């Protein structure tokens, strides 16, 4: 449901919801993307080398990206995830590469993708005579589809179309002082304009259950957040591990609660609308928590957990772009949604100026106010939405690993 576009915002330079953010890429299923990616998806690890060889033969700027499923076992949620990637608004065409004998079907994925008016091709390695021949065939398929993408129609992209993901990683003492609160302020503004904001990392909200419950918009959201918090807490206790990494400690954080207080700042002050499970789209604009771990021990549980993979999973809920705050600095990006990396640590930015997108450390020195930095960050966001490459995109980063979770479609009561 699109929000009305005639409400005027009180914030100075942010005009109104009818403001054109950019001209997006129109998809046949109604989606609007900010990138026009040709996505290569491999459906088992056995097909990964061919898929990556094909992607590697196209330069960074051509928006040919690759991701896939590493295991060779059927998992309904994995299939759904792959399909949401293939039909993500930022994706315009797809090549699905399979060995030919794995439990997931490349043909089925291609058929489902084609139904959204996207070009989709299948490359089965069992039908090729050799590795090199398979790569060459794939390159030809991609080249033809890239030609087709040149004529993708454009369509106005408004705040109410925008879905933002918020993540932190490599936190240090500055994260809770600058980068996370700054992102929280921007998220408040974006919400006020009608955009949707997503967040996750309940592992990094440990100790703040009451605070989160108070931020919930209604009783249903309170129930969902409470249940989700308890699930994460149980996993952390069972696994004997909390998300306070050695780097966090070296960076000046002393407890998981201290880290959590900084991490939660990034969601801003808007009420929490509810909890989404993987592959669920927000039913209407709001501030949503995305539950990214398994509901029970089936699947790999929390076997894979790092920032790039979490950023990628936001794409299953329709996020167009991701903010990643990091005091210690970060280098990752993911294949579908551009990642804008922010630090509040001038030393980190100095070291990683070719990787980090935004230096917010001047808030600590008093050179800039948070409001000024928020305005600059918003401008950067608009530029990225309009096609400016993030540092991670420009360098060709495309990390992320998919896990084999099982989830129900409802938030469970434990």
């Amino acid at each position, binding site marked *: 449901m699109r929000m009305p576009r005639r409400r005027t915002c009180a914030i100075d330079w942010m005009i109104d919801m009818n403001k054109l953010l950019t001209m997006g890429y129109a998809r046949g299923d109604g989606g609007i993307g900010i990138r026009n990616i040709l996505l290569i998806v491999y459906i088992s690890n056995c097909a990964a080398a061919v898929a990556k060889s094909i992607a590697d033969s196209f330069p960074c700027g051509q928006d040919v990206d690759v991701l896939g499923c590493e295991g060779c076992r059927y998992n309904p949620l994995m299939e759904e995830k792959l399909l949401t990637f293939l039909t993500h608004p930022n994706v315009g065409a797809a090549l699905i590469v399979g060995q030919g004998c794995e439990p997931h079907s490349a043909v089925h994925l291609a058929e489902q993708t084609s139904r959204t008016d996207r070009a989709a091709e299948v490359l089965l390695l069992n039908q090729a005579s050799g590795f090199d021949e398979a790569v060459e065939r794939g390159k030809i398929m991609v080249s033809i589809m890239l030609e087709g993408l040149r004529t993708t129609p454009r369509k106005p992209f408004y705040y109410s179309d925008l879905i933002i993901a918020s993540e932190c990683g490599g936190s240090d003492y500055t994260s809770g002082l600058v980068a996370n609160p700054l992102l929280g302020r921007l998220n408040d503004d974006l919400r006020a304009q009608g955009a949707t904001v997503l967040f996750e990392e309940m592992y990094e909200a440990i100790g703040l259950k009451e605070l989160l419950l108070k931020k919930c918009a209604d009783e249903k959201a309170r129930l969902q957040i409470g249940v989700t918090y308890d699930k994460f807490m149980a996993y952390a206790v069972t696994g004997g591990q909390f998300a306070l990494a050695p*780097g966090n400690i070296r960076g000046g954080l002393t407890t998981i609660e201290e880290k959590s207080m900084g991490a939660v700042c990034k969601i801003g002050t808007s009420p929490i609308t509810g909890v989404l499970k993987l592959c669920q789209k927000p039913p209407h604009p709001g501030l949503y928590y995305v539950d990214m771990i398994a509901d029970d021990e089936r699947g790999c549980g929390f076997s894979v957990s790092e920032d*790039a993979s979490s950023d990628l999973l936001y794409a299953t809920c329709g996020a167009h772009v991701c903010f990643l705050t990091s005091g210690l600095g*970060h280098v*990752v990006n993911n294949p579908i949604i551009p990642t804008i990396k922010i630090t509040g640590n001038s030393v980190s930015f100095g070291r*990683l100026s070719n990787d980090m997108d935004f230096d917010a450390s001047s808030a600590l020195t008093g050179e800039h106010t948070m409001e000024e930095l928020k305005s600059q960050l918003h401008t950067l966001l608009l530029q990225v939405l309009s096609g400016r490459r993030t540092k991670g995109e420009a360098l060709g980063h495309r990390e992320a690993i998919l896990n084999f979770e099982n989830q129900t479609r409802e938030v469970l009561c434990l």
Partner: protein
Amino acid sequence: MKDSWKPSVLGKENQGIRKKVLVLYTVNCSSFAAHEICYHFRKKGKDVDVVGNESCYDNQMVINRLLRYATHVNVRAVLVVGHGCEFIQAEKIAAFARERGRNTSVIYGQRVGTEKVIRDGIAIIEEMFSRMDEVNPVNSVGDILGLTVQTERLQGTSVEQIAAFAALCVQQGKAVVYKPLVLTAKQAMELGISCPEYAKMLIDLSDKSIWLQKNDRGYACMTGNLAVTSLLMPLVRGVVKIAMRPTGPGVWLLDNYQDQDLYKGYPNATVLSDLLEYAACGAKLNVLACDRRIDTASPVAPTLCCSFGEREWDRDIQLDEKTDPGLILEEVKAAEAGKTLLCEKRVFQEHMIFRNSQNQCR
């Protein structure tokens, strides 16, 4: 764990069969740089491999594997690429390998950024190659070979050929590590392994394999794997769990299943990751027997790909029902002597290491 025995007839002074530089990453966040560094050299035909961990969290089984790769007999030098803030400590892995005779170095992406870490990594490996002959690690492990059978249609003579090849290897003093997809309780009980610890491990392996197959939407249909498992039973010496080495010649069944909460740490579940598991158990070389096309570029331990079937596809040996198992052994010898295998010519190396939890007292 005693991990040495008399070198086999085939084993030349019981050393590695390659002089690899291994690029090892500690977390997914440093995987991009690690792969870029590795591929820079592989595109030039250099023997550089890449392997690493994806998850940020701590896991002993992942660490055990990484330590095995860093000190594998085929690895002469190790570049550990860390991110900087992760749980798994790059310096400690490098120190472990250094103490065992490897030339090592550590770099962090978070400290210098993508472009510099890649430049630095390339420069370090160039330097490692220039000093490669100075490094002469003392290896005490035995002569270990990984064997995987990936077939749906193989039966009869073909299966017997693979089993006969394994028997030949054992006769020559090799330990053959083999992962049975399913091991029935009957098979486990009939083995009559004298060592009570191995007997217990065997029963555990059987229980876990059956449980997983039963609860994961049906049994695997790798009939060839099941048939070869049966034929190998008389040669079984014991069980190795994740990153454990065989302690003598014979067939060793690999148990890389989670011990508790079976689904939580699902095993790697692809042939490529199984090959990497064998390397963690000390395999110098893997043999992949299949009846379809499988592309592998296995890191650490190269893979001899032998496949049945008349269709043209990439493989090192084409087998048919008349092939003498001794031919496979000859090809193994050739590969051990330095013959470049198909998988070694490929640039991209793929694998996935899952986090598992196992009890490993033996």
